[in-house]
């Protein structure tokens, strides 16, 4: 019987010729990931397993990004646990402040994830790497601690939902709009325990950045992973980033899908997910006048160069609305540098933005832009749960970078056309 892309990668990593949904596998991991919040617990588990060393010092990535540069004394202690562990076990892919960035931004950027890989991370947005043709999913710290010791993980083969995007994209509509539109249709539990395969003529034209945004938010409808077929765009993206050989999997013509969803994007304008759930989605054009206190452009969802460039294109020669805070956080050190070289940072500064160092920042209510009661923020991040970015009386509206930039100028949620 034919297999989906996800099934093929899982089969290849568990020494099987064929797998089907529901099969329980013991799979070999190409890369295991943890951050400054999840690593300390995982390290404790690693030592409990009782192995003297990690399974492969070159197949573990440890990225301080949630609370760094450290926001307080306890978070400095957590980061130190990870730093000391990385030093002791000579972990190759440890990224210190000054080299680091948001984990899901820098791993693809540095070519550490390539097509055909199986990547497991102690962070729910590990699903981001489906954009480069890898199977990747999030787990907790105990799973990750065991993986650091053994290099293996148990996985149940998920049924796959095929999502076909067709039609013609409107201006200012990107990966963010497509994925939150889909989450609005599926609901936050709509793909729980499932794989999503993104396909169709629209996604075949999308940049890797847009695909990363879409795979990133697969978890927001519960999905285990969200994967794209590797194509010329993928190969161009990885070619100067790795010396490893990618393995390209395509779905068989007779692959079995649990369901197929066809979305015609022609009539879809920019979208916004209202508080307090990523599936509370409506078109920006029907959002009325939502007055804003803050706009945040950044995160593992939309903190890449293309996102910043799009926002800057709209902010060029304009100023943020009076009384509104505009916070921009490039996703990595490299993106920060490129944004400086291309004049993007200058545009942001002239528009009245403040620029933060690469970090998750306010996305998860960590630091650098926490909201108080009654405040509203339009954010290019991925979650707008109750209290996600601060007080439970605050509100987060999820948008793409174009709408975020336009909204910063308007002082309310709005479209670039309104400027």
């Amino acid at each position, binding site marked *: 019987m034919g297999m989906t892309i996800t099934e093929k990668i899982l089969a290849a990593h568990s020494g099987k010729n064929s797998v089907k949904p529901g099969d*329980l596998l013991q799979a070999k991991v190409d890369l295991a990931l943890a951050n400054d*919040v*999840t690593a*300390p*617990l995982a390290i*404790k*588990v690693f030592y*409990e*397993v*009782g192995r003297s060393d990690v399974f492969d010092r070159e197949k573990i990535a440890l990225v301080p990004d*949630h*609370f760094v540069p450290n*926001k*307080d004394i*306890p*978070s400095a*202690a*957590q980061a130190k646990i990870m730093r000391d562990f990385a030093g002791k076990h000579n972990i190759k892919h440890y990224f210190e402040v000054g080299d680091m960035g948001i984990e899901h931004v820098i791993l693809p950027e540095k070519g550490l994830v390539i097509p055909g890989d199986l990547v497991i991370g*102690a*962070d*729910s947005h*590990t699903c981001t790497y489906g954009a480069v043709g890898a199977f990747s999913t*999030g*787990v*907790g*710290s*105990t*799973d990750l*601690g*065991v993986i650091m*010791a*053994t290099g293996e993980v*148990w996985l149940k083969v998920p049924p796959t939902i095929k999502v076909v995007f067709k039609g013609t994209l409107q201006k200012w509509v990107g990966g963010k709009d497509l994925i939150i539109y889909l989450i609005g249709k599926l609901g*936050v*539990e709509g793909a*729980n*325990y499932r794989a999503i395969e993104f396909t169709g003529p629209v996604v075949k034209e999308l940049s890797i950045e847009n695909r990363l945004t879409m795979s990133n938010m697969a*978890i927001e409808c*519960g999905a*285990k992973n969200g994967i794209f077929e590797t194509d010329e765009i993928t190969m161009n993206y990885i070619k100067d980033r790795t010396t490893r050989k990618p393995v390209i999997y395509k779905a068989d013509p007779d692959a079995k899908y649990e369901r197929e969803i066809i979305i015609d994007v022609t009539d879809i304008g920019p979208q916004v997910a209202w508080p307090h*759930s990523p599936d509370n989605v409506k078109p920006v054009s029907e959002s009325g006048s939502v007055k804003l206190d803050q706009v945040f452009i950044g995160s593992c969802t939309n903190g890449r160069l293309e996102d910043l460039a799009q926002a800057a294109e709209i902010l060029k020669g304009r100023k943020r609305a009076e009384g509104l805070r505009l916070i921009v956080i490039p996703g990595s050190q490299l993106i920060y540098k490129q944004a400086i070289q291309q004049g993007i940072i200058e545009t942001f500064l002239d528009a009245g933005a403040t620029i933060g160092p690469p970090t998750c920042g306010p996305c*998860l*209510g*960590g630091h650098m832009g926490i909201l108080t009661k009654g405040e509203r923020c339009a954010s290019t991040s991925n*979650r707008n*749960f*109750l*209290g*996600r970015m601060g007080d*439970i009386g605050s509100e987060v509206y999820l948008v793409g970078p174009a709408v975020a930039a336009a909204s910063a100028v308007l002082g309310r949620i709005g479209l670039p056309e309104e400027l």
Partner: protein
Amino acid sequence: MKIQGKVWKFGDNIDTDVIIPARFLNVSDKEILAKNCFADLRPEFGGSVAKGDIILGGSNFGCGSSREHAPLAIKTAGIGVIVAKSFARIFYRNAFNIGLPILESKEAVEAILDGDKVSVDLITGEITNVNKGVKYAANPIPDFMRAIIDAGGLVEYVKKQ
């Protein structure tokens, strides 16, 4: 093995951000995490859960962030079992991995009220509303998850392999 205690009832889509808000993730000390469990949604929770109390959740319990601090905080606070209509994928794994019992039962969640006294048989999956004498059956736990429980969590399971 039986768990008996008071019910703390929650709705659908309880995410791990409300279980343990990010501002408390700067430590991994489970006692501190437990004290701050549901700090915003039910501030009295961390200080007043009695050992063996039970959480009832709606659908998609534990969605969002993979932070294992969430089930760890719930377990350390004293909760003996979570019964929900359904669990989000990562939370489901994490709970088994750390030895926090979880069961699925739509009927029990719909019928049992906040504050009710409930007894749960972790072996048979029988859920009893002690006040009303009504019994409900939980969905059977998959064999592989049962093997992890029987071993005493994932670490012990792996050590035995």
